[in-house]
């Protein structure tokens, strides 16, 4: 137990109580007791003063403390009211996975809570209810960095269920760190998809007035009600609140740690621009339109797949490790056109011989693999490495997880890896796809 927790317990003080403290310096402080800061050492008591500011006081400096007023049990309002459906509007389900789409702040204590019920969303982002009947549904509550293939499967089934029950589109609220992976996974798993499946998140927290969350959500609802039938990520297109971009689920990557426009289409152009005034401007015509087909989930996956980045000085034992541990597939993020240090080649050969699928992508991120140009590439090809064209390393990883769920025959795997299922491979690269 942290020192401050012990102190509060000894004195019979609860978080939320209004107290008066006297310190060694003889100064008196009055305020509300706040919960200790998550990662603090616990040496200080956090007090919220009347003027709204928090300050920390070292427990060791407190010589006297008295409770002024006990915390009232909080009357938290229930936000469960269902909203009436408007018959003329399309229906959109929003699946929550753990990211925060909207927040509410307790200005008394400064605590920030997620807002996710229909009623709360209607209060926070009323615009979306003018576009569609919105049904929010929380399906899991995890950090996006804790996502894993079994959750992709779960999300895919929830999406299919909603769409097959008649929803016109599904939006998935998702933390941004691994949103690209989930988008790719859904792209492969949702077969015969004929309706929009939109992943959305926020780069700047939704409790701040400048958050990108609301506009991203509004644009997502627009895209989810459009004449469109694919998986896409909808996020800010630039730093300003002018338009969002819809990116194809297999071609999108988070390219910045914090900027609003972190998500970029790689080796491809985005599908559409969604302007803040509601206009959707499609940027290409080779996208799937809305159909009435029934979607089904091809959910077979193999989780023993690794994504490995090569680097100068890398030891081949790293490859050996995965083979020894029984991995079924390795996606290599090689250098340049698709190379590894040459001394890795024997280990890679051995991996293939033992039935491990080894795929090559590039850590350049932009551009296409070509392993015919240099001898190392040719040797790797000869060793049985599958060159993954212009696929993103992350997409290739997700795809291999999915492909190995279907077959572990290396020839079959190669065929499937090189088959374009969801726009993950472009046959040729347009000039205007680089660093925009």
């Amino acid at each position, binding site marked *: 137990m942290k020192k401050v927790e012990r102190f509060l317990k000894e004195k019979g003080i609860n978080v939320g109580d209004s107290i008066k403290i006297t310190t060694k310096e003889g*100064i008196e402080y009055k305020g509300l007791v706040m919960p200790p800061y998550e*990662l603090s050492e616990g040496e200080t008591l956090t007090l919220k003063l009347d003027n709204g500011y928090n300050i*920390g006081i070292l427990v060791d400096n407190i010589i006297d403390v008295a409770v002024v007023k006990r915390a009232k049990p909080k009357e938290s309002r229930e936000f469960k009211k269902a909203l009436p459906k408007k018959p003329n509007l399309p229906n959109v389900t929003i699946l929550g996975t753990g990211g925060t789409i909207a927040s509410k*702040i*307790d200005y008394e204590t400064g605590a920030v809570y997620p807002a996710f019920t229909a009623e709360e969303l209607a209060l926070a982002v009323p615009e979306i209810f003018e576009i569609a009947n919105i049904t929010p549904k929380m399906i899991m509550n995890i950090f996006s960095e804790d996502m894993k293939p079994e959750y992709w499967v779960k999300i895919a089934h929830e999406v299919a269920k909603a769409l097959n029950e008649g929803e016109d589109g599904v939006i998935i609220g998702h933390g941004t760190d691994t949103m690209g992976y989930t988008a790719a996974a859904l792209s492969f798993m949702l077969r015969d998809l004929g309706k929009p499946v939109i992943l959305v998140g926020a780069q700047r927290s939704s409790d*701040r007035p400048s958050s990108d969350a609301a506009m991203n959500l509004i644009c997502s609802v627009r895209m989810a009600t459009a004449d469109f039938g694919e998986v896409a990520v909808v996020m800010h297109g630039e730093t300003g609140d002018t338009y969002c971009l819809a990116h194809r689920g297999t071609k999108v990557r988070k390219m910045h740690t914090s900027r609003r426009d972190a998500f970029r289409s790689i080796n491809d152009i985005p599908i559409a621009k969604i302007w803040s005034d509601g206009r959707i401007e499609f940027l290409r015509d080779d996208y799937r339109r809305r159909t009435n087909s029934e979607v089904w989930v091809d959910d077979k996956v193999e989780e023993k797949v690794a994504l490995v980045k090569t680097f100068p000085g890398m030891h081949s034992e790293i490859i050996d490790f995965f083979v020894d541990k029984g991995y079924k597939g390795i996606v290599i993020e090689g250098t340049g056109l698709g190379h590894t240090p040459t001394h890795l080649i024997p280990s890679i050969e051995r991996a293939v011989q033992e039935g491990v699928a080894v795929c090559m992508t590039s850590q350049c991120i932009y551009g296409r693999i070509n392993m015919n140009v240099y001898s190392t590439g040719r040797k790797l090809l000869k060793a049985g490495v599958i060159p993954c064209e212009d696929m993103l390393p992350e997409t290739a990883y997700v795809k291999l997880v999915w492909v190995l769920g279907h077959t572990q025959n290396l020839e079959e795997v190669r065929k499937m890896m090189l088959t374009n299922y969801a726009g993950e491979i472009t046959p040729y690269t347009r000039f205007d796809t680089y660093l925009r």
Partner: protein
Amino acid sequence: MGLNYKELGLKVGLEIHRQLDTKKLFSPVPSELHEEVDFTFQRRLRPTMSELGEIDQAALEEFKKGKTYVYEGNYKFSDLVYMDEEPPHMPDEEALRVALQIAYLLNATPVDEVHFMRKIVIDGSNVSGFQRTAIIAMNGKVDTPWGSVGIPTICLEEDAARIIEREDGKVIYRIDRLGIPLVEIATTPDIHHPEQAKVVAKYIGDALRATRKVKRGLGTIRQDLNVSIKGGARIEIKGVQELDMIPIIIEREVLRQLNLLKIRDELKKRGANEEELKEEFYDVTDIFENTQSKIIARAIKKGGKVLALKLPKFRGLIGYEIQPGRRLGTEMADRAKKYVKGIFHIDELPNYGITQEEVNAVIERLGLGEQDAFVLVAAEEEIAKKALGEVLQRAKEALYGVPEETRRALPDGNTQYMRPLPGKARMYPETDIPPILVTEEMKEEILANLPELPQAKVERYVKEFKIDKSLAKTLVDDERDELFEELIEMGVKPSLAASILVVVLKGLKKEVPIENITDGHIKEAFKLYLDNKIAKEAFEEIFKELALHPEKSAFQVAEEKGLTLLSPEEVEKIIDEIIQQNIDVIKATGMRAMGMIMGRAMAKLRGKADGKLVSQLVRKKIQELSS
């Protein structure tokens, strides 16, 4: 003014903001303003919901109107943090240190742990929609001859972006100022005399300057006053620039409140009440069809209307002076300013081209009694209605005395309506910055190196540099002390540095805008002097020109004005010429010709040669000739 402030129950509190001369608070971007704009971006700010589902209604309405904020940035002086595209870095250590120094200088106690908060600000001036702010220290005080004044809090916070332009539905800000650290010092409302407020502000200002880490110049210091008297209301006055104006502004605010109370009493006596103040606007456009009033004629021509508002029992009171040159009518006009340029009220008419006949016609149309007044607005109908609505609101408030509001300080010491008093701050913790423990080591280190307070500095100057006490005091008061010490370091004699900085510059103040003269200019001029390129007589002329043309360099001015010193050889040549022209006199009178020759030489060489050198040369030459 012979007011008894104690009897009036005068209460004044100060809030002083001063920029620190460090990097920005949460990112090491240089904290400088710039004129070049490299890029712009456009954002909207959405009000955040409280846990009870409440959203600030006013803010939501603003948001729904689609107000956008355009931010101007410069690649060098802005960064992702201040575009709200990156989480904040840890606070600038120097800023934190300076804030703690200031705390100690103001007898305050640092908090054990600093917690940065987010204070919601939705007008766009903070890109994120909130200002980061933290209490650094509490419980300070300033002693004055009228008694001690408390300083409950000393905060360290981020300055806001500066507004460049306001357009329809759009505000343009420049983000260079955003994030510059500000120290905010608030006092308790224990100031009971206008002069006491100045003393407190001066003391705080001295402490801030003592750190040598505060920014100087226009806009780097903002002093707000909270003023109230018994029966009046708390008025927040923003934007007080000069120390000397503080007592005047307070006096005038007291005067304003007293007069508004008088108006209230008179209205009460006349039996005025809120029910009679009806939101009824009379269309009197026809009365002004052939008016001589250009403003009204122009409005009508543009398809506008002339609307009249009836203010029963207000006759004579709208024109009642409440501050020198300002009337209740001025306060009404300030409120209406949101919609129209101005209003006309009965107490000022006939005037502005409006005739007595027109006034009479309006009185008749509205059926006004002897004590009743009217206000006119000429504009597009909807706008005119809104403007008169504001006037009506202000009239209603007059029934109750002094309305609480935030006012803007005007250059003459009067104040003008700015906006309603802000509501309670909405704050929540800045979770991106962990709490910062103020360690014993930090405190000890700061206490051991506390800067010199101005009074001590004056005494040191007198002792160490042997300069006159009043000179020393002026140097410190005028914030020339840092420059003064720098000049001494350069090798300038203290007495010369002091007299040029104080006497010469002060003398020029009446003639030219001396605030244009930078420290750089001054140092350059002294460098020229030390290098024997100019005489000390040249300073005045050079500074005068620099004040008018700050883009020039001191050297450039010296050259242009022919103030550069001649080399000893050139001086000698000129003296030789003069000697030759007067050789007969010299030969005849010897050293008695010295005065005459010196006079002629100086007439040619003043400001171009050191007088001592001239006199030496002249003496030598005469001696040579007459021996």
